[in-house]
């Protein structure tokens, strides 16, 4: 189960599981956003490589038009996944407070 809400002038709150079954829906939602998009990951419990693909595709699209994707409230578990994949070098990531 994945829930995404917000965007444009407010952070996008994403919660649940971003896995292969939810990747298309997440991509569809994020494809509508532009500029600097902040993704609040406080409720994101799980992320697979399919989810990493969604984030990368979104970030690249935003970069091409002068924007970017930034992630906030990232849990330790997700930080590990971002570190293993090198995403911590290409995305702005703010850990959980």
């Amino acid at each position, binding site marked *: 189960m994945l829930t995404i809400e917000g965007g444009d002038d407010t952070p996008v709150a994403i919660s649940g599981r971003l896995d292969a079954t939810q990747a298309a829906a997440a991509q569809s939602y994020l494809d509508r956003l532009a500029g600097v998009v902040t993704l609040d990951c406080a409720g994101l419990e*799980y992320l697979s490589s399919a989810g990493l693909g969604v984030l990368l595709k979104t970030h690249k699209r935003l970069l091409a038009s002068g924007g970017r994707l930034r992630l906030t409230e990232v849990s330790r578990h997700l930080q590990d996944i971002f570190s*293993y994949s090198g995403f911590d070098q*290409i995305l702005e990531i703010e850990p959980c407070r």
Partner: protein
Amino acid sequence: MESAAFPRRIDALTEVVAFITAAFERLDAPLELRRDVDFVLEELFTNVVKYGRGVAPVTIDIAAVAGGVEVTLTEPEAERFDITRPPTVDTTLPAESRRPGGLGLHLIPRVVDSVKYDYSAAERCSRITFLKTTTSAPPDDAAGHGEKTC
């Protein structure tokens, strides 16, 4: 040991997750291992769905071992593809040079204690076994998980 078979469809991943949840409960396995086990099984299962040419269901076995679980994914009607030797992924590339995909198999060894690939050409069956524990302690051989055939 807990065992179940799943059809080769991405949406069957929901059933896989439900099976892992129930198996962890019945085996009294450490819950802190769940996300990593979910992660590895999703990567392995979706790899079979995307690239496997067979139609027979994929079987997943989960056994309790000391401090964790040993998980085996068995794919019948398989071609040989050693997932422990995936194509190289350069995780140092800038975003502009990266392409989605290919990361899953690359990440598996990072989140488990060990992973092993076996292929039987005679049976055309691949078997991937990984171990995930809370420590680096070796698995308990008394867990009762012997060799299986497809």
